[in-house]
Every structure is written in structure tokens, then in C-alpha cells.
């Protein structure tokens, strides 16, 4: 087997800048997932035999096309195997079939001796990318990926033609989950090759490396890691590769599968890997020495290591003026605390610490609570759950119905409940504030964690007052400071605090002062820019 692998990896590449690099890099370790025994063998000289192996392996699936043809005057038999839909049929007809049949129909080939591979590759086929292959397993893999395989009678090597269909994918558009005002409007799509090229367009450097793996016994999903050589820590890269290669699963349908299989704290509600739909975010992360994991079939790219503050940062922070970003970031941290603690604080103060409120406020609050049948905690719980239901409904409903949900929500939950005396208006204000604050958290997965954690904190503060609140806060802080994401402390650079990291936590230093990469991931190549970039008055 080892000899075969070597032979395969030594096979000539026709074009150096091929779009995909699957094949020799990842066949080591992948098991024969196709069931039959003779697939692991190599091709034989007998076309019928070869063909029957493929017939047997692929079955008589209607989407697998066996196109028989005969080449030249001697009518050398050959067969093209591809999957309709995955392969580009127009290109096959134009570049393969036409040249193999019509254009050399009268050529005298003198049998198979003259019809060698070099002739076909160099003189007949007019495709851009071609490879040779002689193991059934690899050929099957190519067919399933959408490539076309050409088997020719009496030849022991098949030709793989890379003519994949570009149909069936949506165009590159603006990412839905990460909207912004200023910045590029492109987002990743479901096709790995396109996503990869989007990153390459941002970072046109030979330092940008991609490494591809195939994960999923049945789905055979292409997964690709990306990093900047010399900037990303080598240990981090090998750790990512090791964790990915440990995955043995039947199918990877979304990057969420991988996320759960590689993250450090499987029981923590806090996300320790970051996902994004934006190529510019990924490029920025790569420049900081992180590693991106692209998964075929999903626009969400995983970036590791993911730290807590990253979930409260947006790429737009780096495009807008740094002066306003300071304010916006503080606002975002504030709304993080509001989302997490405001309902609990309200409950705790109303239940235990009325003396904290100024007298007038206490009076007006108690006036609005006149005749409310529930204690503050129950009231808060009802409203929060109702809001979560509304939000979930709004997310899942088809768009035309969505409007009616918001009307019903606003009228019933907001207005009618207050008028009926079930909920106090103050509580509606609190819940609405919390809801709006929760939408300002950029990292959706962190937002989910906070939404969930709100409820236990509410229970604690309903039973122990503000002390319960602070206990919950402490427990969360302790929990978060124990987490690590690929070796980087989750709360870095807040705790453990490091000075260079503070440039990008609460404030975003202007670009002329952001001289270094983050200490935790970018220490290999620490300087980001020259130190004297501050704009200066022109010399007289």
C-alpha cells in the first residue's frame, strides 16, 4: 500500500495552480469506505473489468453516467464516468467528447501503442486541469467529488479531468447574520473553493497556506484549514490538525459538527471557537496568527482560538474611526451586562432591596405594581419566556407571516398584558431593554449563552437578592477564567491581563498605534507594522 501512495503522490500535476488539492495529502489514514474489496486494487488492462468494478461500486444509480466512446480509426474503446449535476456536462461535451471522438475520428492511431497517455493529455484533451490516477479508491473519490474519469482500453492508468459544475450555488452576497455599515459586502457561500479564493484575494501572499482534509466516512466532506505561515504558531496549527484528524464520524453537514467535536470545554455554555461568514474577518484573524477551518457546504467558517472579547467585537470596529469605536465598545460591554443582569437586578431590588431606590422612584414603581397578581420574579419569568418564544417564532416563520407575529407580540404581550393588569409596565420596559441590548452582542453563539444564563441568574437573585447576583457573577467569572481555547486563556487579555492586549479590548487603538499582534496568538511575528506611522504635519 505504501508504494501505491508514493506512486500517487509522485504523479504529475498538469497545472500548478489547480483549484483543488485533494488526493495524495489525505489518503493516508482514510479507510476504505466503499465496502467492496477489490476497490483497493489498481486498474487492470481490461476495460470491461475496470468498468465493472465501477458499476459494482456505484450501483445503477441514475445520476452516474457511463458514456461509451471509441477513439480514432481503430475504434479504441473508452468510457467516461461522471455524475450528472456534479460534473460540468457542457465542458465534457466540448472539451472531451468532441476532441476524443469527432476531431480525431479519421486519425490513424495504430492501436493502443500509439494512443498513449502523453498523446491524449497533450494533443487531444483541451481541459485546463488533468491528473493521472490508477487506484480505484481514488478514482471513485474523484467521481464523487464531481470530476470526470476517462478509462481507455488496454491502459492501466485512468485520466481524471477536473470539470466540476459551477451550477447550483448561490452567488456571493452580503452575509445575513453579520450586517454592517462600512466594510466589504461579500460573505462566504456554500462552496469551499470559492470561499478559499475569497481569503486568497484578501491575503495574496505565499505565506497563506491551505491544508485540506476529508472528514466524514459517508459524507466525505472537504475540510480545509488556513493559516499564515510564520505568523500562526506551529503548535497551534498542528494541534488543530490533530484534533481534526481525530474526528471519525459518518457525516459533517455543517461546521457546527466540527465546532462541537474540537472545542475545549464541551460542557460550557460559552463558545470557545468563533464562527464567521465574512472573509475580511477571517483575514483579520489570520493576520493575528489564528487558524481558520473552512468546511465545504456551509458559509460559516470556524476561527480558532476564540476568546471571549472577540464575541463582543465586530470587524467594523476596525474600519470606523477609533474615537467612536471606544464609545461603541463600551456601549456593547454595557449591553452585555444589561442582557445578563438587568432582569435579575430588577427582581432582586424589588424583592429585597427597596431601600436602594430613591423614594420617588420607589413610590412610582409600587404604584405601577398595584394589583399585579404575581411576585416580581414570576412576572419577570413569564415576560422573559414570552419574549424568547416570540423571538424564536420570528426566526422560524416564513417571512410574510413574520409581520403578524410582531403585531400580535407587541399588542398582546406589550399592551394587553399591561392593561389587563397581569404585568406591570416597568417590567415591560425592563424586558424590552434587555431584549434590545441582547441584539447588540455581535457573536451570535455568545448571545445564545447569555440568553440561557439569564434564567439561572434570575432564580439566584430571586432567592438571595443582590448577593445571589454577585455570586452568579463570580461563578461566571471563575468559570470563564478557567476556560481555554486551544491553549489561549478564554478571558485573555482581560484576565490574565497583559498590557499589549489592552489596545484592542475596551478601546481600539488607532491603526498607527496598533503596532503589535495579540500576544497570545501572534507572538511568533510580534510586530504588525512600523512604529512611526502616526500621521504628521508635512515638513515645511
Amino acid at each position, binding site marked *: 500500500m505504501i508504494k501505491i501512495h508514493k506512486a500517487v503522490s509522485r504523479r504529475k500535476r498538469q497545472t500548478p495552480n489547480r483549484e483543488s488539492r485533494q488526493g495524495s495529502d489525505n489518503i493516508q489514514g482514510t479507510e476504505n469506505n466503499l465496502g467492496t474489496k477489490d476497490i483497493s486494487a489498481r486498474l487492470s488492462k481490461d476495460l470491461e473489468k475496470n468498468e465493472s468494478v465501477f458499476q459494482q461500486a456505484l450501483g445503477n444509480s441514475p445520476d452516474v453516467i457511463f458514456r461509451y466512446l471509441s477513439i480514432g480509426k481503430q475504434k479504441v474503446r473508452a468510457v467516461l464516468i461522471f455524475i450528472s449535476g456534479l460534473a460540468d456536462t457542457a465542458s465534457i461535451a466540448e472539451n472531451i467528447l468532441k476532441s476524443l471522438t469527432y476531431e480525431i475520428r479519421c486519425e490513424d492511431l495504430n492501436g493502443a501503442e500509439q494512443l498513449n497517455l502523453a498523446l491524449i493529455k497533450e494533443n487531444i484533451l483541451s481541459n485546463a486541469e488533468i491528473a493521472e490516477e490508477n487506484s480505484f479508491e481514488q478514482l471513485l473519490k474523484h467521481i464523487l467529488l464531481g470530476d470526470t474519469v476517462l478509462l481507455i482500453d488496454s491502459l492501466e492508468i485512468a485520466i481524471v479531468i477536473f470539470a466540476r459544475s459551477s451550477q447550483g450555488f448561490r452567488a456571493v452576497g452580503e452575509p445575513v447574520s453579520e450586517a454592517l455599515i462600512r466594510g466589504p459586502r461579500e460573505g462566504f457561500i456554500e462552496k469551499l473553493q470559492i470561499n478559499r479564493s475569497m481569503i486568497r484575494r484578501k491575503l495574496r501572499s505565499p505565506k497563506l497556506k491551505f491544508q485540506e482534509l476529508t472528514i466524514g466516512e459517508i459524507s466525505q466532506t472537504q475540510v480545509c484549514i488556513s493559516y499564515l505561515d510564520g505568523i500562526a504558531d506551529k503548535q497551534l496549527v498542528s494541534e488543530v490538525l490533530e484534533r481534526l484528524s481525530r474526528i471519525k464520524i459518518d457525516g459533517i453537514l455543517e461546521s457546527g459538527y466540527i465546532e462541537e467535536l474540537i472545542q475545549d470545554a464541551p460542557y460550557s455554555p460559552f463558545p470557545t471557537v468563533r464562527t464567521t461568514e465574512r472573509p475580511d474577518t477571517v483575514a483579520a484573524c489570520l493576520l493575528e496568527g489564528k487558524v481558520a477551518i473552512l468546511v465545504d457546504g456551509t458559509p460559516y467558517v470556524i476561527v480558532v482560538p476564540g476568546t471571549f472579547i472577540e464575541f463582543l467585537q465586530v470587524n467594523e470596529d476596525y474600519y470606523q474611526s477609533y474615537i467612536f469605536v471606544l464609545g461603541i465598545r463600551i456601549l456593547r460591554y454595557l449591553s452585555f451586562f444589561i442582557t445578563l443582569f438587568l432582569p435579575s437586578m430588577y427582581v432582586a431590588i424589588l424583592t429585597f432591596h427597596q431601600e436602594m431606590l430613591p423614594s420617588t422612584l420607589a413610590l412610582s414603581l409600587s404604584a405601577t405594581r398595584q394589583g399585579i397578581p404575581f411576585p416580581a420574579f414570576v412576572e419577570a419569568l413569564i415576560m422573559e419566556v414570552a419574549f424568547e418564544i416570540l423571538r424564536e417564532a420570528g426566526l422560524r416563520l416564513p417571512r410574510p407571516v413574520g409581520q403578524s407575529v410582531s403585531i400580535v407580540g407587541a399588542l398582546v404581550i406589550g399592551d394587553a398584558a399591561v392593561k389587563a393588569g397581569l404585568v406591570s409596565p416597568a417590567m415591560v420596559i425592563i424586558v424590552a431593554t434587555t431584549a434590545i441590548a441582547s441584539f447588540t452582542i455581535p457573536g451570535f453563539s455568545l448571545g445564545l449563552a447569555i440568553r440561557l444564563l439569564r434564567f439561572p441568574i434570575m432564580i439566584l437573585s430571586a432567592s438571595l437578592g443582590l448577593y445571589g447576583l454577585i*455570586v452568579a457573577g463570580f461563578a461566571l467569572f471563575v468559570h470563564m477564567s478557567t476556560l481555554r481555547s486551544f491553549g489561549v486563556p478564554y478571558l485573555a487579555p*482581560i484576565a*490574565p491581563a497583559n498590557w499589549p492586549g489592552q489596545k484592542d479590548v475596551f478601546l481600539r487603538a488607532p491603526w498607527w498605534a496598533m503596532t503589535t499582534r495579540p500576544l497570545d496568538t501572534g507572538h511568533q511575528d510580534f510586530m504588525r507594522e512600523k512604529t512611526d506611522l502616526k500621521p504628521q504635519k508635512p515638513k515645511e
Partner: protein
Amino acid sequence: MPEKGRISLGQAAIIASSFALGTGIFVLPAFEINWAREDAWLIQVLVTFPSLILVFIVDKLGRKFPGQTIIQYSETILGKYLGKVFGFAVTLFFFWTGSVILYELAAFLVSAVIPETPMMVFLIVSGLLIAYTVYNGLETIGRLHVWFIPITVFSLIFIVLLACKEMNLNYFQPFLANGIAPVIRGARTSNSYHGCMILAMAMLTPYINKPGKIRKSYIYAVIVCSLVYGINTVGCLAVFGPFEGGRVSMPTIELVKMINIADIIQRIEVLLILNWVGAVFTMSTAWFYFSVLGTAQLFNLKKYQFLVFPMILGYIGVAALNYRSYPVFVDYIDRIWAPYAAVHEFLLPAFLLLVAIIRRRGIKTDTKSQGV
């Protein structure tokens, strides 16, 4: 070594200062004003010096026995059996004092925040939280302290500034009317609070990742602590005067209650109390951590995590059963705990250093080359 984590020098200094800062904020002004009256502000000037001497002693010991805590090098210095007895005494001191702090936290919550809830609830909830933190190791404790101790210090200074309106500087006169003796008596408790800090240093030194200017940063820590206490005492004395200030059990909280600026900043005591709950909690966490770590080192265990849960039960139990009421507790701190602590903090390290020099144990160190 039972502890794998490493902390930075700054974290170590902050953990050490939290050893003194947490509860001292509430109780110390009352002790000081009670004994020294008008001259209470002098106490913090006085207590800085013994602590500074202690810094030098413990620093010397740390250099003689690098990579060892006080529990471990007392065994190296005194031999196996006597050393174990010494180590046990120090560990017991950590354990006992930590539970005193836990009681203080709970008593404080019951008296100031939620009066109707039984104290046991607070003891158990806080105890579990402490156990959870300690279970996660020194690095977590370091990260926790770095955020909560500075907040405490700044909020305290802020309060004293806000209370400026109520201050009467005539309360500081006459100067030394009763001689120096009452001042020294009043300094005893404060001195024991300060000494804790250096004992923490003796436990932490082996776990600092880049041992640089350890002595310098601890000297800073001592001075900052003295300053914070001094500001606190001066504030309380200036607002309440030499007689009322000694009678109130927690003058700092009364101080906060008096703050009312333009009817906007008022009734902020609950927020500050919560902040201080954080400080006392971090403090108790550090004490409990050292008692667990000390036990593990006493018995040469490879891990200390499994000790956390059984020991926290004892910790809660000691805190719950020992004191009948808060006044009894205050009396206990002033009359019994302060000398008890002073023995462990001052005599013990001094004795160890003396024996180490006589028996020629440890590495010979050249103080000049280390750079202060």
C-alpha cells in the same frame, strides 16, 4: 508539586494584598479609633515598618530555598518532625483565619444586606463558590484577584472623597494626648492584618513565573495597603470623631450611608457592599486555597483537588459554630486572633531564618546582586 499553575509577579502581589485588604476595610477603623482615639491615623504609619522588616525576612528565606513554600522549607530547616509541626501550625493558621473571614462575610451580609435569611445560607453558598474557585487552581485565583482588588481599592478611595463634605478636621486634635501606648495597643490588630500579606508571599513565591523584583513589588504592596487603610481610617475618624467612630461596629459602612450629594448620589451602600462582598470573597478564597495547598504539601500529595470538598465542609463548620454573635467575634479578633496571628506571621519566619543561618541550610545568597 501539587500546583501546576504559574502566576505573574503582579498577580502574586495583588493576591497578597487581598490577604489584608478584604475584611480589614470594615473592622480595622473601629479597632484603631477605639484604642488610639485622635491618633488613629498614626497606626498605619507605625505598622508599615514591621511589615517591611518581615518582607526582608521572607524574601531572604525565599531566596535560600527557591521553589519551596514556607511549609516545605520549614521541613528543610527544622528536620522532618519539627518541620511538620511548624507546617501544620501555619496551615492551621490559614484554615482558621480563612474561616474567620468567611464568618465575617456572612455576618456582614446578614447584618447589612439581607437580615432575615439565616447565616448558614450565606456560609454554604459562599463556601461552595470558594470551593469551586479553589478547585480550579491558582491561575484562576490570580485572574479573579487582579480584577476585584483594584475595584475595591478605588471604590474605597472614591467613597472617602465623596464623604469629604461631612468631615471635621478638628477631630484629629489633640496630638498624642495620652502618650504613644494606646496607639501601639491599637496597632496590634492592624499589624496582624498586615503580616498576613507577607505570609501569603511566603506561600506564593515558588509559583511566580518570572521571578524578578519580588521584594520591590511586595514593598509596594505593603505601602499601598497601608495607604488604603490610612485613607479609610482618616475618613472614618474625620467623619465620626474619636468616640463615635470607635463605637460603631463597621464605620466604613456608616460612612457610605452618610453620602448624599445633591440628592443624586445617595443610598449607594448596597452597591459598595456588594463590591466589598467580592473583595472579602476573594480574600477568603485565597486563605482557603493556601490551607488546602498547605495540607497537600504537608502530606506530600501530588494533587490537592480532592481535598477541596472535605475541607470546605470543615471550613463552613468552623465558621458557623465558633462565634455566638458579631460583638463576640469582634472581641475575639482584637484580643485573641491578633496575637495568635502575630506569632505565626512574625516570630515563625524570623525563627526559621535564624535556624537556617545557624544550621547553614539553603543556598547562599548575595543580596546586592539580586537588585532590590
